[in-house]
């Protein structure tokens, strides 16, 4: 506090500044760097320079983008090579790697928080845009490109300029069937995919405080879909409880000291933000995307919007193009859209709470379409199996897969066939994202479960009422 109140964003930034250049660019220390199969360009640049890895002890590998996630699937040899290349790159440089078959393997953004590799107050980078996820624990975490990956590998530092600070406040009380995914999607639908370009976001307000750490991971994950590299939540008692006894977190007295420091990271009263926006939780209904950008989303109980009512001709053209790609008519009821398959997984929604929410809807029901569940990590998979969730999914007709990025990005060969429509818990509904010609509808895990049961997009609140 005192004379110069600071936001959590400033506190984290200041703690990592090594040097400041005249043009304002700062050299920042990187506390954790996660690498995956796609980091091969970065390792390649290191090799070209015959350079050393500066801090292999702060670098961790996870096999996620190319690992097979379906049992008995014939593995593409290029994918096998990509996974092997990561293991080899890590072994060569003395980097701990949670490779294929490792008991801690999974999606980097699921594994690192659960192992306590992600901690409040750390600066974390990874060559993946969804690195914003780690902000949920109060870390300063952002995605970087291959040249920056190479730079971090060689120096353990990164050049950045101070972002503008944005506070996103979500107050009120959420209604039934509304979770972290709906909140994040409602923000993007209301303010657009570019609303936070150039900003770092702090999410705050009663609704954010009430979210579990897992819900916050989902919320921060989707920050990049609002144009921001980075979204975070100030650490609180839930954060501390989540990390206690995590294997890579400080232990015993060291943990107690750390926890004190972490709680002090919260933004000071009267700290200045460059931008402030808000959302009333009462406005949020379970939400789905109808188009090919995350901002093209609408409440489940509404209709596919009509481009003709837009005044901006470029936007109207983008909407028409989206409707054509998605095979939808303006004005049709969203809950009349039939689906061909369902996917539950990805760094957005593959944690134990996500699987529990979907299983609660699928229990004693049958899916009308083929579905795949890919738990976010081996640990999540084990826990889910311990709770019998796998048996609920299988009984409902879903395939119970292994951990990885899977059908979110289709790099491992798990794709949605061209022309098919998938209800998906993932993060991007871009054209061809889940495979060439695929049509993606983004929504929460319980909404995907409801859609699978109905064979069409469906308001989960109807099934929740039936269950009571």
């Amino acid at each position, binding site marked *: 506090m005192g004379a110069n109140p600071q936001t959590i964003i400033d506190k984290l930034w200041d*703690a990592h500044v*090594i*040097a400041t250049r005249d*043009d*304002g*660019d700062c*050299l920042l*220390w990187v*506390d*954790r760097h996660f690498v995956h199969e*796609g980091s091969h*360009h970065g390792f*390649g640049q290191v090799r070209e320079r015959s350079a050393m890895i500066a801090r292999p*002890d702060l670098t961790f590998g996870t096999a996620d983008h190319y690992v097979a996630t379906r049992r008995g699937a014939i593995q593409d040899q290029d994918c096998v*090579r*990509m996974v092997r290349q990561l293991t080899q790159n890590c072994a060569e440089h003395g980097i701990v790697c949670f490779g294929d078959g490792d008991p801690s393997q999974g999606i980097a953004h699921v594994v690192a928080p659960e192992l306590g590799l992600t*901690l409040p*107050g750390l600066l974390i980078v990874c*060559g*993946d*845009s969804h690195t914003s996820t780690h902000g949920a624990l109060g870390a300063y975490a952002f*995605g*970087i*490109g*291959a*040249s920056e990956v190479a*730079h971090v590998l*060689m*120096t353990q530092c990164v*050049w950045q*300029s101070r972002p503008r600070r944005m506070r996103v406040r979500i107050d009120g009380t959420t209604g039934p069937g509304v979770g972290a995914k709906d909140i994040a999607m409602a923000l993007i639908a209301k303010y657009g*995919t*570019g609303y936070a*370009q150039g900003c770092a976001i702090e999410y705050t307000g009663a609704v954010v405080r009430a979210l579990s750490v897992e819900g916050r991971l989902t919320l921060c994950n989707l920050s*990049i879909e609002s*144009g*921001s*590299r980075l979204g975070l939540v100030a650490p609180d008692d839930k954060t501390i409880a989540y990390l206690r006894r995590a*294997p*890579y977190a*400080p*232990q015993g007295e*060291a*943990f107690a*000291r*750390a926890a004190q420091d972490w709680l002090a990271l919260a933004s000071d009263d009267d700290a200045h933000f460059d931008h402030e926006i808000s959302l009333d939780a009462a406005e949020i209904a379970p939400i789905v995307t109808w188009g090919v*950008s995350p901002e093209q989303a609408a409440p489940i109980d509404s209709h596919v919007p009509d481009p003709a009512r837009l005044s901006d001709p*470029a*936007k109207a053209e*983008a909407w028409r193009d989206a409707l054509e790609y998605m095979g939808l008519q303006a004005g049709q009821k969203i809950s009349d859209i039939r689906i061909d398959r369902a996917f539950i997984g990805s760094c957005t929604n593959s944690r134990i709470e996500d699987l529990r929410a979907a299983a609660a809807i699928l229990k004693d029901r049958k899916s009308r379409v083929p579905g795949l569940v890919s738990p976010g990590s081996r640990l999540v998979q084990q826990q889910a199996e311990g709770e019998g969730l796998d048996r609920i999914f299988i009984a409902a007709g879903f395939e119970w897969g292994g951990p990885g990025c899977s059908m979110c*990005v*289709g*790099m491992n060969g798990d794709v949605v066939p061209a022309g098919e429509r998938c209800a998906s818990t993932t993060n*991007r509904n*871009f*054209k*061809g*994202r889940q495979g*060439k*010609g695929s049509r993606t509808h983004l929504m929460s895990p319980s909404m995907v479960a409801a859609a699978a049961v109905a064979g069409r997009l469906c308001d989960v609140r109807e099934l929740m009422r039936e269950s009571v």
Partner: protein
Amino acid sequence: MVPFTILTAPACPLGLENVDTDQLIPARFMQTPRAQGYGGFLLHDLRRTESGSMRVEFVLNDPRYAAAAVMIARNNFGCGSSREAAVYVLADAGFRCVLAPGFGDIFTSNAIQNGLLPARVAACDIESLLHDPSVLAGAPITIDLMEQSVSSGDKTFAFDLRADFRQRLLNGWDTVDMTRSYAKDIEAFLVRDLAARPWRDPVR
């Protein structure tokens, strides 16, 4: 990296909004080693039909823009995934500059790393360029990084770029060498930081 000063070249009036990096290069091509060249993957699925032949009506396939080194797009260009390959496809296809009202943050950093100028031009000026008969005819436009200006015929528009990014493009700096010159600062940081954050390193 080759420094960027002035560029005079035809511009491709792409005109699309929210061009995400999955459009710029679909994920399935990203296992390719860079040495093989990425230019052929640029906007692959928009550019080609199902059977793989070129869509003649797609602007990038228009012979008037075959020598284009500038891309003109609407807002939020390069949003989505952090894949630097989205810059490789542009660079390898001969592009040195993209004009748009706004860019994905990670795309911007990746562009700078590869000497590609992501110039932020006001939305109304982008509209003007997209409707400029001389641009549409494939006549060259000039991008001046010192002046931060775009000129087409007798029209000139300003563009925005962060000062540090501008410096780096003008100088063609290698960031790794630059960082290494800060070795003493890094050492000093690590000592004082350990006192402030004794919990920062992983325990295992």
